[in-house]
């Protein structure tokens, strides 16, 4: 789902790195938002809503709507649409409101 060539833009990407999503290894580019790397790998559901457990993905992609909150390296409620990917990150689907204790 990555754009290979574009009539106007040249995409500068960092080095390729791997990370895990719910235990599964995925490859992305260092520095891009985690949500972008997940989306490129075909992962659209990032969390489930608190009451009705409905699947949620990103919506605004700019860090303002809270639809994309996931657990990253054990830390809940991380806005993965703006959080930059680093090698070895452990990313997990968040169920409802994150446990912040």
């Amino acid at each position, binding site marked *: *789902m*990555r*754009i290979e060539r*574009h*009539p*106007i*833009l040249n*995409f500068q*990407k960092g080095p390729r790195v791997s990370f895990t999503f719910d235990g599964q290894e995925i490859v992305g580019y260092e520095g*891009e*938002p985690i949500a*972008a790397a997940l*989306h*490129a790998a075909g992962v*659209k*559901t*990032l969390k489930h*809503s608190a009451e009705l457990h*409905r*699947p*949620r*993905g*990103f*919506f*605004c*992609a*700019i*860090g*303002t709507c809270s*639809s994309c909150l996931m657990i990253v390296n054990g830390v809940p409620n991380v806005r993965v*649409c*703006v959080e930059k990917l680093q090698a070895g990150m452990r990313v997990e689907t968040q169920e409802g409101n994150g446990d912040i204790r």
Partner: protein
Amino acid sequence: MIRTQIAVIGGGPAGLRAADAAARAGAKVLLIDNSDHLGGQLIKQTHMFFGSQEQFAGTRGIDIAAKLVRDLHSRENVDVMLDATALGIYEDGVLTVEQNDKVYKVNSERIIVATGASERMLAFPNNDLPGVYGAGAVQTLMNVHGIKPGNSVLMIGAGNIGLIVSYQLLQAGVKVEAIVEASPTIGGYLVHASKIRRAGVPIYTRHTIKEALGVNAVEGAVICQLNNQWQPIEGTERTLGVDVICLAVGLSPLCDLLWQAGCEMKYIPELGGYVAIRDEESLQTSRQQIYIAGDVAGVEEASSAMVEGQIAGLSAAANLGLSTSELNNELKNARSQLSALRAGPVGEKIRAGLAAAERGATVNA
């Protein structure tokens, strides 16, 4: 306590121009933005801009952003805080800012709020499914990160954003199944619509989305026709096989800070929602310390945002005694440019909204 003369909140086209103008006038400037880069929405705009040479007509938005940032970095008296969120402006005029989990207090003589606008949501069943994205999100994904949002898109809204993002989707190699627009006419520039139509993308006016289909993500959408009272016409439902539903249904000014700061606010639909009342000439709000510029003052175009930023920056500086006859001429010139941009038929709505937003106005738009 950080001390400065003019704090600009928001580093998009309006904020960049405000900071640059204020710095040229000799003020010490602090520019604050809550993302990791300057340029705001400009950094996603791959199309050539309209307007005139003063607003960089013919230049692509991404290149305008680069130029504005370069200009700003060439000014010595400007400090920039990125990943910094303005939290509040208090009675004593102090501005608080959070950056990397630390809170800073800023003592600034004048503050220019240029926080832009946010996307509106549309209510329909399953509108929370993965695959329903704001137009800005689709642009960010495609034009900043180089990723296709999906394979086939239903675009909701035929204003400039809906039309432009549809074109950008085509450029990214993504199919646009259709554009639906609730009103009877296309709201955006007709040249944008023509580009899309000659690429084979249908535009269905008097149509809207009835519901999104899908279990774990968008798999389709049901659209239907609307009657003259904007109500769905039974029996006109049609299902489209799409995996992305893109909402381009309007923007609302992001004016929380202005509310919190106690500025006089007014609901003006022509400007996108609640906006701060302002002095037309200087863009100063009802709070003497605070000015506004760009979409937060009224949803418009980037070209207007840039000129408003220039006006707010120069006015705030002049208010501190930092003005010269040359700068005054620049200010007058900027005001003429803004009038010219708004003088045509497409500016009618804005002009009506601005008349109601003027301090001391007794009219409602």
